[in-house]
């Protein structure tokens, strides 16, 4: 069924806590049905035209399950399916084929790249897709606004009775945080695994699971480390990281109890590495690090620089190894992570988050979803969630790379509103959101940091690159930008440029 957010975006300072009832865990004597092959599975689940199915992306670009299911759905000639995937990666080519053939007519996801992003950008998907945030996705499912008919859960390991663990098995991926809402709220839950063995711990209890299917392989764990999770070696990136640490220090966040999150971009990881040094040199103990967890954060945690890790997704195999053995490395659900109405959500407890941007404008609005040509290249993931929740959200980026300036007049697409961003650190200076006027004065007076206005950065970029021609899109709306509270903050129109 089509998912259509309608509420227009409006800045809200805080969200009143709400709770939603799930009733699966109270099921008594629940038994998981086992099927032998795809035919049996599809006979049992009775998937129909117009239904909504869901997937999680913990196996990232190594995932085999979505293609397996999409191939079957294409073969069975179903129509008008909505796919609600937590994220879509380049490996998911079968979904692109399904969209082109009208089998899938809407995608709802927090991030998409590769062939699916291309067909959506080209306007090949019948209905506008919806780009969510990780927290917003959990909210949309828990609140019943996004109704999932069948959730297909890639399950690295299951026991015979149908409990699921992400921590064991051939394709162990650690936390299953993005699949938790699907497991608890979908009408029907299908767990697909390649490993059946006794489990040490459950990430999803069997009460949530209706059907289990054993296959040869659910995916390649090497694909978990895909693309962005490497530290930069570029001296400019390292210099930006260094200034970011100096800024955090100047604003007063580098102290005992620090809670911290960083994205997986090269410069963000360099910030983590330099924070590591800073904390251990000054014998400072942070409280927690959260989000997508990388080996860099695990090292800090194991050295005692953070007391706890809250892990919604393991970004690399070092994080998977840690969650298997470390007691204070907790798996959390996307709702506990970033649902704005979840009373204990982690993002609201964050001090500092380090994030990337493909564009940031004079109002500090950030775009991580499309290129200047309106083509979809990614998505919020937890960007908008952590920017809102954290006390200090810092964007790190080179001002210019390959003639494209990160600072623009107006972002092509709003992923994260400027009201929730506090600072931008670039190689050409640091811009602080004007609402922090006292901080700006203090930094100018007491530090050697180069504090400039966003307009000055824009002028520098234009001086280097020349004034860019604007690239207008076509009329057709191909996707809605859904903010974390399920309001619509922007739209993406069809890309004019041949892809």
């Amino acid at each position, binding site marked *: 069924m089509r998912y259509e957010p309608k509420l227009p975006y409006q800045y809200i300072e805080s969200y009143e806590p709400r709770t939603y009832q799930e009733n699966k865990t109270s099921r008594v004597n629940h038994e998981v049905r086992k099927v032998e092959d795809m035919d049996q599975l599809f006979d049992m689940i009775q998937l129909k035209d117009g239904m909504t199915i869901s997937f999680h992306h913990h196996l990232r670009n190594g995932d085999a399950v979505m293609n397996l299911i999409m191939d079957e759905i294409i073969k069975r000639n179903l129509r008008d399916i909505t796919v609600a995937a937590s994220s879509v990666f380049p490996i998911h080519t079968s979904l692109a084929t399904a969209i082109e053939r009208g089998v899938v007519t809407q995608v709802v996801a927090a991030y998409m790249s590769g062939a699916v992003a291309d067909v959506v950008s080209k306007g090949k998907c019948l209905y506008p897709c919806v780009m969510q945030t990780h927290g917003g996705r959990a909210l949309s499912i828990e609140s019943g606004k996004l109704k999932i008919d069948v959730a297909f859960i890639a399950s690295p390991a299951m026991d015979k009775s149908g409990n699921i663990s992400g921590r064991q098995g051939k394709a162990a991926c650690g936390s299953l945080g993005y699949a938790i809402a699907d497991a608890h709220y979908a009408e029907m839950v299908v767990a697909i695994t390649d490993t059946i063995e006794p489990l040490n711990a459950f990430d999803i209890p069997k009460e949530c699971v209706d059907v289990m299917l054993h296959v040869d392989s659910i995916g390649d764990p090497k694909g978990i480390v895909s693309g962005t999770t490497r530290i930069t070696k570029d*001296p*400019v990136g*390292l*210099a930006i990281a260094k200034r970011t640490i100096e800024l955090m220090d100047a604003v007063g966040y580098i102290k005992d109890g620090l809670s911290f999150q960083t994205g997986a971009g090269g410069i963000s990881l360099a910030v983590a590495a330099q924070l590591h040094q800073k904390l251990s040199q000054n014998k400072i103990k942070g409280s927690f690090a959260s989000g997508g967890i990388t080996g860099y954060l695990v090292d800090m945690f194991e050295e005692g620089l953070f007391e706890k890790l809250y892990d919604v997704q393991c970004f690399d195999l070092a994080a998977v190894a840690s969650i298997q053995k470390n007691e204070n490395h907790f798996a959390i659900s996307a709702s506990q992570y970033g649902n704005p109405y979840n009373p204990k959500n982690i993002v609201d407890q964050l001090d500092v988050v380090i994030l990337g941007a493909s564009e940031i404008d004079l109002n500090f609005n950030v775009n991580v979803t499309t290129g200047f040509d309106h083509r979809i290249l990614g998505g919020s993931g937890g960007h908008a969630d952590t920017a809102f929740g954290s006390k200090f959200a810092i964007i790190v980026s080179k001002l*210019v790379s390959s003639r494209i300036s990160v600072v623009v007049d107006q972002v092509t697409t709003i992923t994260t509103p400027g009201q929730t961003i506090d600072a931008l650190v670039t*190689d*050409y200076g640091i811009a602080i959101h004007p609402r922090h006027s006292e901080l700006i004065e203090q930094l100018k007076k007491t530090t050697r940091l180069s504090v400039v206005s966003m307009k000055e950065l824009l002028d520098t970029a234009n*001086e*280097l690159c020349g004034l860019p021609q604007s690239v207008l899109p076509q009329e057709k709306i191909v996707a809605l930008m859904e903010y974390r509270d399920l309001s619509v903050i922007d739209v993406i129109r069809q890309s004019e440029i041949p892809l």
Partner: protein
Amino acid sequence: MSIRSALFVPGNSAAMVLSSPILDADAIILDCEDAIAMASKDSASLLIKHTLMQLPRRQKEFWVRINPLGSDFFVDDLNNILPSLPDALLIPKADGDNWDEIIASIEKVENKFDLIPVDLIALIESAKGVMTCEKLARHPRTKGFLLGGEDFASDMGIARREDNRELLFSRYQVVTWAKAFKLLCLDTPYTDIDNLEGFKLDCEFSASIGFDGKACIHPLQAEVANVVYSVSDDQIRWAKEVLDETKKQSVGVFSFKGKMIDRPVIMRAEQTIEKAKKWGLLR
């Protein structure tokens, strides 16, 4: 001219040349010489030419190391680089015997394009260069020295040592002649880029015998050099106090906080404040 760090950047890498303005070095040395393969010499020279003409320079000096006199590229480099107004030229293999000829070639190009004379830094990297640096120092066009330890050692037929003991004489010789004529003097590069601790010790020694700064081959080295060759907050505070006190005093020599203050001390205090201003250390 006061330069704590001068960072070599290969002149043919568009990405590195582009990012050089924001790196932590007081001077960037765009290199046409050792960092560039024979087949790319023309390309590096022209990239530097166009870069200097268009890149916003801000508060940083841009020097160019050209190819040496006698190479096929020396004249082309001068014709490409001089009209694009570098802040200084670094002249490799300089010595007392070739300096006049080098300067004549430079002046020929400067006259052709009607240019203001460029600052010249002599790269002293041979036994002859070390032993004839008096002549370099006395020449009115010379603005500074940079000691090149690697080429010097090969010219001497000796191996480099980790403690740089083989450079002791040349360091004292070069820096003392530089100071005798109020020239900038930069110390030889430290080649082990992974050993920042060793780099720092090397800088501390060279600063202690009068070098103004260090030639660097990695941005992280430049950061360290900027601290070692800099003036400390304590020095700045002391200098301010001395100068404030000087204004109040009517005599040339007086006692302040138990120390005798006279003209040389006051001049040093003035130099400290001047450097602090230049490097943005005054708050």
